[in-house]
């Protein structure tokens, strides 16, 4: 493992992308970033600008309008940038599958590197997902 990968896994700045979800996953993501779980221990920070992001935390079932914005955001992010789908809607569309206004699951639009199922997933599950992502990155 070279220094570049090690630095990336030790300092993950996340960008929160909420695509028309019911807001529950977003609340759980914010919970995961509170002092109780203290993700800064692992160097994980929430950033506001996509240009600073290493990981996009994407939630919600994606509509045709949000799909355009997701693709643009992914193109704006500096590489290497990873995408994590948080929640059942983001992973598999959940109850919105086959809806007339849905643009398809996340992995049909941008490459997704980790899936965190749950409706909504607990903060512990989100941290677990990020840890698995870091382990996969270290293996290469």
């Amino acid at each position, binding site marked *: 493992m070279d220094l570049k990968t*090690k630095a990336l896994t030790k300092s993950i700045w996340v960008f929160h992308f909420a695509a028309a979800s019911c807001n529950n996953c977003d609340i759980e993501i914010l919970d995961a970033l509170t002092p109780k779980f203290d993700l800064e221990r692992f160097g994980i920070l929430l950033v*506001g600008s996509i240009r600073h992001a290493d990981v996009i935390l994407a939630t919600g079932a994606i509509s045709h309008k949000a799909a355009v914005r997701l693709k643009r955001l992914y193109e704006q992010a500096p590489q*290497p940038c990873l995408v994590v789908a948080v929640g059942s809607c983001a992973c598999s569309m959940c109850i919105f599958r086959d809806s007339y206004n849905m643009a398809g699951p996340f992995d049909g639009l941008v490459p997704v590197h980790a899936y965190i199922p749950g409706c909504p997933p607990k903060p512990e599950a989100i941290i677990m997902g990020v840890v698995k992502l870091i382990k996969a990155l270290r293996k290469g």
Partner: protein
Amino acid sequence: MAKTLFYFIVFPGFLFTALIGLLVSWIDRKVTARVQWRVGPPILQPFYDFVKLLGKETIAPQAGSKLTFLFSPIFGLAAATVVSTILWLVMISPEKTFLGDLIVVIYLLTIPSISIIIGGFASGNPLASLGASREMKMVLAYELPFILAVFTPVIKAQGIIRLGDLLQYQWANSIFLNSWSGFIAFVVAIICMQAKLALVPFDIPEAETEIIAGPYIEYSGAPLALHKLTRWMMLFVVPMFLVVMFMGGILFSGWHILWGILKYVLLLVIIILIRNTNPRLRIDQAIKFFWGPMTILAVIGVILAFLGI
């Protein structure tokens, strides 16, 4: 020639200041975490952040001016390096001072803010322009009381504007903080320092909850790393400047070195505590605060210094 290069690149200059800057920013984050009852990041965290940013892709926005956008972080970094070199050389050997180096240092301390303004305007992003214009207003607001506060010791020392002579004056007599005028000027300078470092309650230019990251919004990769490094170095350089001006600097002999470092740590803890116990001000409130109460306080300090109190 080789000695000068060594001064600028290795010892009091770039490498030394950058390393201490990384350490100091870790202390800042760790103490903040402890205040919020958290564990906080490991000691190498700023180093990992810096290396990671160097390894990321650099994007220059199409709407902006690419050359200005990419070069602006270098101005800030160079200015912080030069200030640190001047301050430490003067502390190690006070006879290395030159006429008016105090004025040079005051000018150079403004340049990191100006590099942020240039970078923000060059990025062609409306939020970055908004942040840069706020930064410009902040510079206009805090410079007046800051310069008045810095000139109070100069008046007390009968018009010495060499940093080395100011230090020797303090070592021969007492430090400027021991007098009423010096104390008032020191309080004003601490609050102006908070604004100079763009920390809460004066982090108005990059208010991440309203204008995301302000001037930094379009930066990614290596230029962002340089901007961050400049900020961390300033967290070391600006308090050091106040230590030299008001608290007699660091005397390099025996126990005095430890005592000098303690002075800096005291200032750092004050900065961190102010940062953790205050909400953010609006830009108009900040300007009113600096041009009103702070300037009046600084003028009182100057008058007291003229009276010799």
